[in-house]
């Protein structure tokens, strides 16, 4: 019996769904509207992407300015990275080990105006928390190469990091003459292991990394670097090392002798995107060494300047939202206006089922339009921005898929919510007004508040609490716990994680549908 009831319920819903879909697809104006919405997404994405141009200057002289973007290296995992540091290294063949004691780590911060090129001439003392100095192994001195490093930092203790994104913590505390740190790294085959110690006798493993396809001969040495502060000021770090020992792991005569020390400044080309405070360098005295460097070895964030593949999508989607708000409203209000709703309820007396069928139809249509349009618009916009010299942060296919699904869901949820509002109000004008004010204007007002006034808290709340939070699904700018940077709305970062933002929009749609269902069941048609 219960099986029978269930089957008939499912069949009833399928029939209602089919009826609603027939009503929808046979109105020519709505189909034209959908195609129009999709085309607008693509058209405006292209227009907006096409209007973005990037250029840069290597000196204050205007003749040195060229179109195009500065060089942002790509790490082994395909992500954008900062790879700018001072390395003093020897070439090591086969398995080996390096040990050093770091006795001081000090820094300088650019003290001049933010819009001037930083130079060491005008600085004040200060050490950023992610200033790094220690031992590093890398197969190549090309930017973006694989590496593993065990390092003392300005404010995060000893760290073992490899390939830009991986990080393990060692001994806490800052470096001083009375509290030095011993660091050691060994290479065994493809495995690099980092150790630290307070006294050079008791060693702890900080972490280890497996660097695939590590060549037999690698660079092994000392590094120093210091990233920009969270205010964007360039910095430089100076580290003193002693008790430096480097050699093969076992006394094997087969290994060729080590070469001499040589310094490499990595990432100092004229197209370098990372802002540094002067050039690095080193001084050597016996087994002691002072290394000075500026830059970072970490994931790149918005500070390097760059767009994302979804940056030009927003406006087109807003146009699609308005079209779907209008169609979602008429989908229910026209039934009231023409009295068709009485026929509908005569055919499907379960009103909740009618509402659900309408929601599935308008939501499905909205999703398909939003997803197809953004799937077409993203590569087009990316192509236009590339052609204009813009740097676009790399994004893997899964992330792009999230943006496409997000665009579809954004349009679908808005259409469903407006269907609910239309059901509650039964009047086109009111439903569209509420729809546009609640679902479109926060997105529109956000940047307007961001622009003229310096208050970003209002804009941040708009993207947290209003349906504009759904646009978090478009966020592609990379963020990293290893880089101190203000990840704020004004720097292009949405305050909510993508799926959390979409959940806010889901909540709005759910409330609208819930109230609509309650109202629909209580009153006459």
């Amino acid at each position: 019996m219960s099986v029978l009831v269930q089957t008939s319920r499912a069949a009833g819903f399928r029939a209602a769904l089919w009826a609603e879909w027939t009503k929808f697809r046979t109105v020519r104006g709505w189909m034209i509207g959908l195609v129009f919405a999709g085309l607008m997404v693509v058209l405006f994405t292209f227009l907006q992407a096409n209007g973005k141009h990037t250029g840069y200057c290597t000196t204050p002289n205007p003749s040195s300015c060229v179109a195009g973007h500065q060089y942002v290296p790509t790490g082994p995992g395909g992500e954008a990275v900062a790879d700018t540091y001072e390395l003093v290294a020897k070439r090591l063949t086969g398995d080996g080990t390096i040990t050093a004691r770091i006795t001081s780590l000090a820094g300088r911060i650019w003290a001049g105006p933010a819009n001037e090129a930083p130079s060491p001439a005008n600085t004040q003392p200060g050490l950023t928390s992610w200033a790094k100095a220690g031992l590093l192994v890398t197969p190549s001195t090309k930017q973006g190469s694989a590496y593993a490093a065990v390092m003392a930092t300005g404010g995060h203790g000893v760290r073992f990091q490899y390939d830009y994104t991986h990080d393990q913590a060692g001994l806490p505390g800052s470096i001083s003459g009375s509290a030095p740190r011993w660091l050691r790294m060994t290479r065994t085959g493809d495995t690099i292991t980092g150790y630290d110690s307070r006294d050079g006798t008791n060693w702890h493993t900080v972490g280890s990394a497996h660097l695939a396809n590590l060549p037999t001969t690698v660079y092994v040495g000392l590094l120093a670097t210091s990233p920009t502060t969270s205010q964007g000021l360039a910095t430089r770090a100076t580290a003193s090392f002693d008790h430096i020992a480097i050699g093969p792991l076992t006394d094997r005569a087969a290994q060729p002798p080590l070469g001499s020390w040589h310094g490499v400044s990595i990432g100092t080309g004229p197209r370098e995107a990372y802002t540094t405070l002067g050039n690095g360098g080193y001084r050597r005295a016996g087994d002691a060494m002072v290394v000075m460097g500026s830059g970072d070895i970490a994931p790149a964030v918005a500070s390097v300047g760059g767009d994302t593949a979804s940056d030009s999508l927003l406006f087109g989607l807003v146009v699609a939202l308005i079209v779907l708000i209008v169609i979602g409203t008429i989908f229910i209000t026209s039934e009231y206006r023409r009295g068709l709703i009485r026929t509908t309820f005569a055919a499907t007396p379960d009103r909740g089922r009618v509402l659900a069928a309408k929601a599935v139809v308008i939501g499905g249509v909205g999703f398909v339009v939003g997803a197809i349009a953004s799937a077409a618009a993203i590569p087009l916009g990316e192509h236009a921005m590339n052609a204009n010299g813009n740097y676009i942060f790399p994004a893997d296919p899964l992330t792009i898929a999230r943006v496409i699904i997000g665009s579809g869901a954004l349009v679908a949820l808005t259409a469903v919510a407006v269907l609910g509002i239309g059901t509650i109000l039964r009047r086109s004008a009111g439903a569209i007004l509420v729809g546009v004010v609640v679902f479109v204007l926060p997105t529109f007002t956000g940047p307007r508040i961001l622009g003229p006034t310096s208050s970003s808290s209002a804009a941040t709340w708009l993207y947290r609490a209003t349906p504009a939070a759904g646009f978090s699904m478009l966020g592609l700018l990379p963020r990293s716990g290893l880089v101190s940077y203000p990840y704020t709305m004004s720097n292009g970062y949405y305050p909510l994680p993508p799926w959390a933002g979409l959940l806010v929009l889901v909540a709005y749609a759910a409330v609208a549908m819930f109230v609509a269902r309650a109202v629909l069941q209580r009153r006459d048609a």
Partner: protein
Amino acid sequence: MTDALHAEWTKLRTVAGTWWLVAGAVALTVTASAGIAASTHVSPGGGGQDPTKLCLIGVDLGQAVVAVLAVLAVTEEYGTGMIRVTLAATPRRAVMLGAKAVNLAGLVLATGAPAVAGCLIAGRLLLPAAGLDPAHGYALVSIAHGPTLRAACGSILYLGLIALLSLGIATVVRDTAVSTGVVLGLLYLPPLLAQLVSGPWRRHLQQIAPMTAGLAIQATRNIRSLPVSPWAGLGTLALWAAGMLLIGLAVVKARDA
């Protein structure tokens, strides 16, 4: 003409929705202004703010309600078939549309006045807490200040012109939902687009789009750097409104009701 005016006024006045929309327009405008003024925090040294423009920002939102009010004045007649009675009583299309426009403009101007006054009062009370006070070089918002008076009166006129523009569009489109969508799209999309495009396109867009051009009337500082001067901007909006009304008239004359 007097009869037509009286007839249109009776229709406008006796529809329950009208007064809800009027109240909604005032409430939305003032609430939005007060909310944004209260949540603004200008850091010291964050110069170049325009307190008058900031406290009139609610007009951005309130205009949506005004637009709907204007759209409904036409589309409801088409929706219910009332338009056939109206045209039987007032066969001259120009008189009918003119009477609608005059009534609507009068009602919206009367709605705009308290809304704008509310915004200014909210701004005067709330903006000093945001750091826009005489201590930071910003005078209190005051109607005695020439540019502020111009911005306030201009904002009321702006709402009136938005109503006429919407009336024109609704006369052409005839359907409530589609008209509302077209009007709101025409108002809100160009400013959004202008923020996203760069170069001369942005300026041109701001010069011709009805909302950005019309709202230039609210600026009281850095007028030279505006894409369009205050009165020229309001004039642009007036051209939009006149143009849409004329198209509406031509369409109404040409087709059956």
